[in-house]
């Protein structure tokens, strides 16, 4: 790797106040673009064609196994979807799942992150224990939870039936809210480590000195938390909430295995899957994909605005 120390003399050549792209700025520009290029190429290669194809096909009526019936229908697919109560029910389900799981995971994940960060004894054991749920294959985790909640084979009923709202023969998958609870429990257990990892990354960047200084100044634990730790973790919290929310909105595996969408527990992602893959309705399915994508875009926009963090402006801030 050649080491060219940029010549400070160059900067002196540029007259102050003149807006001209200096050689250095141009070099920086080129370098920056080269560094991001591999990542961008890979990302776009895989998703550009499908995105465009989805947009295109969403204007057609097209079923894979009856290609002779293919026909242009303009925006009517969108009309059918937006006017369909199933679509809105599923969207509501998905939003509920997203909000509840992200909120709970944020709290629990933060607690776990603190533990992972601060713990002095049994470090390896605790950190590993916290991360294991994330390492279990999702499909298996869903089966295991489904099995645990089942009547004849599970332990949830036999262990918890002393709680007032659980009977020994409780059919967890027999009604909407019980099934949603089971699904959310499985989802939260599985992905809290994801949240806690991202929060840990942010937590570990909070400067010890600031904390010590605050402690010396007499701040209580709660005050240190709210005034020092959280504000400095803002970027990490935002990334964690953002990506977890996006993932939660696209929840699929747990629902497919635990209820297959019965009792109205279907999610938007599952609906899209059924249209595209099972029904082989490529036209309607593509329209659903586009709408799903737009919904996620809106959510991301809201979250980023909410946090008011700009990742790209790295320098200049203290």
């Amino acid at each position, binding site marked *: 790797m050649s080491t060219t*120390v940029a010549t400070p003399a160059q900067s002196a050549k540029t007259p102050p106040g003149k807006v001209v792209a200096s050689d250095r700025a141009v070099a920086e*520009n080129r370098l920056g*673009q080269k*560094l*991001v290029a*591999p*990542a961008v190429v*890979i*990302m776009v*290669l*895989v998703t550009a*064609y*499908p995105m465009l194809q989805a947009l295109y096909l969403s204007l057609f009526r097209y079923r894979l196994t009856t290609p002779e019936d293919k026909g242009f229908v303009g925006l009517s697919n969108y009309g059918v979807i937006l006017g369909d109560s199933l679509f809105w029910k599923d969207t509501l389900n998905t939003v509920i799942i997203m909000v509840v799981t992200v909120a709970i995971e944020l709290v629990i994940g933060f607690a776990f992150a603190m533990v992972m*960060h*601060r713990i*002095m*004894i049994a470090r*390896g054991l*605790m*950190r590993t*224990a*916290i*991360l*294991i749920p994330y*390492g*279990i*294959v999702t*499909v*298996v*985790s869903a*089966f*295991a939870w489904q*099995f*645990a909640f089942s*009547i004849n*084979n599970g*332990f949830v009923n036999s262990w918890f039936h002393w709680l007032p709202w659980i009977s020994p023969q409780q059919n967890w998958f027999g009604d909407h809210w019980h099934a949603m609870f089971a699904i959310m429990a499985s989802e939260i257990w599985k992905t809290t480590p994801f949240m806690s*990892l991202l929060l*840990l*990354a942010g937590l*570990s*960047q909070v*400067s*010890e*000195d600031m904390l010590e200084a605050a402690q010396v100044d007499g701040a209580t634990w709660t005050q240190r938390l709210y005034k020092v730790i959280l504000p400095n973790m803002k*970027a990490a919290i935002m*990334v964690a909430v*953002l990506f977890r929310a996006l993932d939660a909105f696209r929840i*699929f595996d747990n629902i497919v295995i635990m209820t297959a969408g019965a009792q109205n527990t279907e999610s938007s992602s599952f609906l*899209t*899957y059924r249209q595209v*893959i099972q029904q082989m309705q490529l036209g309607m399915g593509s329209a659903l*994909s586009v709408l799903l*994508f737009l919904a*996620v*875009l809106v959510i*991301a926009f809201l979250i980023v605005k909410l946090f008011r963090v700009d*990742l*790209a402006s790295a*320098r200049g801030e203290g």
Partner: protein
Amino acid sequence: MKQKIGPGVIVGFIVILVWCLLPVAWIISLSFKSVSETTTGSAQFLPKSWTIQNYKDILSNGDFTDALRNSFGIAIIATLLSVIFATLAAYAIARLDFKGKRVVLSIALAIAMFPVVSLISPLFDMWRTFHLFNTWPGLIIPYMSFTLPLAIWTLSAFFREIPWEMEQAAQVDGATSWQAFRKVIVPLAAPGVFTAAILTFFFAWNEFALAISLTSTTSSRTVPAQMSFFVGPDPFNPPYSQLATAAVIVTIPVIVIVLLFQRRIVAGLTSGAVKG
């Protein structure tokens, strides 16, 4: 800083351990239940009679060991490449000024938001044309595509927090840019890099939808997809015992990896580095 091992901390430990490991214990216990027991139903946590028949069956199943090999290979390669590309990109975004910086972040985010199910059919067609169907790159490339956004965002957030002054100080002290990078930035960025690596690895490890659609034989099928080929005692019962056994076998190496690297994901800024 010495930690008080009070009763509160102990209780906290136990609560966390139980929360995380109880379902895992359940899965392990399932793997020791015989197939006939899970078929006829037994509503208890521990097996009525312990058996290792499931393990024998699975380990002698050539398809499963192939799937294990595929999963590891694909996940590791995807992780390595993804982390490398993401680090380069994140560094550029956080440190350099170039046209299209925000566009890249937005593209990354947009791609992270794209529904995977819509990707299946077009990707299937594309890969058949490029002869990438049922190959390792055929899965590695989409996995990278989906994990790069998160890795880039995580690492950008990380790099953003590393004080600019540190590199400057090192260079003022006479280090070259590369030495400054290696000796100052890399140790500070290590937690971020390892975090991104773990997230990428587990994404590739757990992924199911693409794995089942873009493969057709055990030459590239990964473990989650292979699990849908497990045969239960009859066509109508999910093979819970076998699934649990496969999960245990598959998770042991993962636990080992996590144990080895869990130290790296935590860092404190070495006290003294920023003082003064």
